[in-house]
């Protein structure tokens, strides 16, 4: 509905010198002022600043503008900003069109003449579209005051506690039988050397006891549907084969399991052993046992010894139930936080380090379990013990290797994992503490001690007599029949090739996206950045948001980070998720599809194409004849416009991206400037 002749204001932003250094802004203003419908064209150093926006507001009032074109940065950046400007000035916010003359012009083209010509064209196309813009109505829907958090490592735990403390319901879903994530496996934390368990376990207990948190361990998200404010999730609670309410966590079942001490423990990174019925670690939350369905004799072979399963026989609480089935739970939530964490790099992908063949070449995480007081050796540094805990030796010469699987194009990981420099320094320190006579050498490419207290800690470790050699080992192999390893390396500071002897090598393995990252992406429709971690909505200004409204990221699933950064991001994600829940309302997409019932022929192509099932065929009385036409459910439509491309008659069109709005843009851009 055009009530007035279009009166367009065009505003060209200098963006400091970001635009003005390449583009002749005055020439673009000059060009814009002559375009049909344009009544004012101005430029300003920073349009997004308060004076810049004030200029627009003032012109809307004085010049009676009813359309605004801003030529500046990407609309993905400042479209919401300028929409609000229009709104403040009493104009419908959808009377705004932006021309991207920074990201897609001044920043990518060097020649000022060419860039200026292109900017003119882009502004002209924006004006052509602005002439045909329509006022749209912004509708609001209620927000379900609950949040779903996937992953109960430190990120998920922290976010859950913050949201629950703010008074909102949290569903915390964890794939493993216990919460805690990787942090629970660590011994001490750098650079302060606080005991990881001491700071984490109270929080683990809190999430289990918090009245607002519903903890769902050993569970996975099956499906997600809906949109911000009104998501529906189906959670699969996997069968534990142990009655959750009856189990007292006494552990007698595990002691009596026929496979006790035979199964490598995931929590202990395979250097400790567990039973088929187990809790991952003594402080696990919830302290409820789980039967491993892939190992348990009763579940895999249908038979466990002559007398039947011993666990069931000894359980006084009668909690064991081999008939238990997976349970599907449907929940309704308003927001979602993805905190799925990371996997460590698998060092068998670098065979030159001999990880697969030599038990005394271990990953940093294995070393954490070895050095931990709650680990399989009780914190004693003994390498190469067998399953029964016998044998082994105390290492005398220990080598630490930096950047295993990080900053390494040959394995596809170009990024720095950010934690390895410091955790290796910490581990070197811990060994020095326990074995003061050990000879410790660290092989590094660079030492990145960028965080608070990191440089001081690194300095302290070096002063403790730990040698740092700059060089990336080319090969690690066993010498002779004993456990002595040779580390071949070139000291790149002196250019000397060297061979070091060691009887324990710890690989500073990097952090990688989880192996099941694809499933999470498909479930939540997330994007990946080039490193494979999840992509945030904006690298600087929206680091916890995703491209999907109402879905946020926390922790290492977005990229490697240490514990303080993870906690900070989790708190950020929690506060972002709280915004729609606290306000109770969320705006639904205004740029949705609309059907011209008089032109619709009811073929239903749009119905088939719509990914959100937002369109259906409904009966329509056309002058007494009952016919079927398409009808759009406004709450479900997201405005992708696929329907419009499928429609042969053009009867269904997405608002703000209608054929009649795009064709003039094509017409403008098609004409060459001679």
């Amino acid at each position, binding site marked *: 509905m055009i009530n007035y002749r279009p009166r367009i204001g065009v505003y060209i932003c200098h963006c400091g010198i970001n635009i003005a250094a390449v583009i002749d802004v005055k020439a673009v203003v000059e060009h814009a002022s002559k375009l049909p419908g344009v009544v004012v064209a101005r430029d300003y150093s920073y349009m997004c600043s308060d004076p810049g926006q004030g200029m627009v507001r003032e012109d809307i009032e004085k010049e009676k503008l009813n359309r605004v074109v801003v030529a500046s940065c990407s609309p993905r950046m400042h479209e919401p900003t300028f929409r609000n400007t229009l709104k403040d000035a009493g104009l419908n916010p959808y009377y705004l069109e932006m021309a991207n003359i920074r990201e897609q012009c001044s920043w*990518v083209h060097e020649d000022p003449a060419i*860039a200026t010509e292109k900017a003119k064209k882009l502004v002209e196309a924006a004006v052509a579209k602005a002439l045909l813009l329509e006022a749209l109505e912004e509708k609001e829907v209620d927000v379900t005051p609950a949040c779903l958090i996937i992953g109960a490592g430190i990120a998920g735990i922290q976010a859950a506690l913050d949201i629950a403390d703010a008074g909102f319901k949290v569903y915390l879903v964890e794939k493993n039988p216990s919460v805690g994530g990787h942090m629970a496996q660590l011994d001490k934390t750098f650079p302060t050397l606080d005991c990881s368990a001491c700071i984490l376990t109270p929080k683990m207990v809190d999430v289990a006891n918090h009245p607002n948190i519903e903890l769902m361990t050993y569970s996975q998200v099956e499906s997600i549907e809906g949109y911000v404010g009104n998501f529906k999730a189906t959670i699969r609670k996997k069968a534990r084969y142990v009655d959750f309410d009856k189990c007292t966590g006494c552990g007698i079942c595990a002691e009596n399991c026929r496979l006790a001490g035979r199964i490598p423990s995931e929590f202990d990174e395979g250097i400790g052993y567990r039973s088929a019925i187990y809790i991952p670690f003594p402080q696990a939350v919830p302290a409820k046992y789980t039967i491993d369905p892939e190992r348990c004799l009763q579940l895999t072979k249908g038979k466990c010894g002559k007398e039947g399963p011993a666990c069931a026989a000894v359980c006084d609480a009668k909690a064991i139930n081999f008939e238990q089935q997976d349970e599907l739970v449907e929940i309704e939530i308003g927001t979602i936080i993805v905190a799925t964490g990371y996997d460590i790099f698998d060092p068998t992908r670098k065979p030159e380090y001999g990880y697969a063949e030599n038990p005394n070449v271990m990953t940093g995480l294995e070393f954490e379990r070895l050095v931990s007081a709650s680990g399989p050796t009780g914190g004693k540094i003994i390498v190469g013990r067998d399953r029964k805990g016998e044998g082994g030796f105390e290492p005398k010469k220990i080598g630490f290797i930096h950047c295993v699987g990080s900053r390494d194009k040959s394995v596809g990981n170009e990024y720095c994992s950010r934690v390895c420099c410091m955790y290796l320094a910490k581990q070197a320190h811990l060994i020095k503490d326990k074995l003061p006579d050990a000879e410790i050498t660290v092989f590094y490419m660079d030492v990145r001690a960028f965080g608070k207290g990191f440089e001081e800690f690194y300095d302290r470790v070096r002063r403790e007599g730990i040698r740092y050699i700059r060089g990336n080992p080319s090969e690690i192999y066993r010498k002779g029949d004993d456990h002595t390893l040779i580390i071949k390396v070139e000291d790149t500071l002196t250019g000397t090739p060297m061979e070091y002897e060691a009887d324990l090598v710890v690989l500073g393995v990097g952090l990688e996206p989880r192996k099941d990252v694809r499933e999470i992406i498909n479930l939540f429709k997330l994007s990946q950045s080039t490193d494979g971690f999840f992509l945030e909505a904006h690298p600087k200004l929206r680091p916890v948001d995703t491209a999907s409204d109402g879905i946020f990221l926390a922790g290492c699933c977005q990229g490697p980070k240490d514990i303080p950064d993870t906690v900070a991001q989790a708190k950020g994600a929690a506060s972002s998720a709280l915004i729609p829940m606290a306000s109770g309302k969320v705006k639904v997409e205004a740029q949705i599809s609309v059907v011209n019932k008089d032109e619709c022929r009811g073929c239903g192509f749009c119905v088939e194409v719509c990914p959100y099932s937002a369109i259906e065929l409904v009966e329509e009385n056309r002058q007494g004849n009952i016919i079927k036409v398409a009808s759009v459910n406004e709450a479900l439509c997201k405005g992708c416009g*696929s329907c419009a491309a499928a429609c042969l008659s053009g009867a269904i069109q997405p608002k703000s991206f209608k054929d009649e709005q795009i064709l003039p843009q094509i017409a403008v851009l*098609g004409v060459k400037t001679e």
Partner: protein
Amino acid sequence: MSNDFEPNIIGFLCNWCSYAGADLAGTSRTHYLPNVKIIRVMCSGRVNPLFIVNALQQGADGVLISGCHPGDCHYLEGNYFARRRFVLMHKLLEHVGVDPRRVQMSWVSASEGAKFKDVVEKIVSDVKEAGPMDQFRRRQLNW
């Protein structure tokens, strides 16, 4: 064709992947050729293949459509429909005698700023070889 022919190409980019990828090329100051002028649409599935025909008629020498990689569509499956439509329209135009290099499609994700540059270079050099599109350019009416 002489080498000083500078083709005019219209690009239809989806908001979530390719437009964001082009933005990333910008923030990374990746210099590329200025011939492609971009029209933002919400999804590659929005691109009515008749837009391509219209662009060629209006005077564009080439048309680029770019969307999210298969499986990554922000709207779940819009790019799958776009792919079907594009392949058929491409074949139809080829049959009418339009040089097939003029009309191209790419998958560019939000993190592939560098790929966007490559895509632009490729289509620009292809269309340069194909020469100016004057087969059914619309007469500009001046009245």
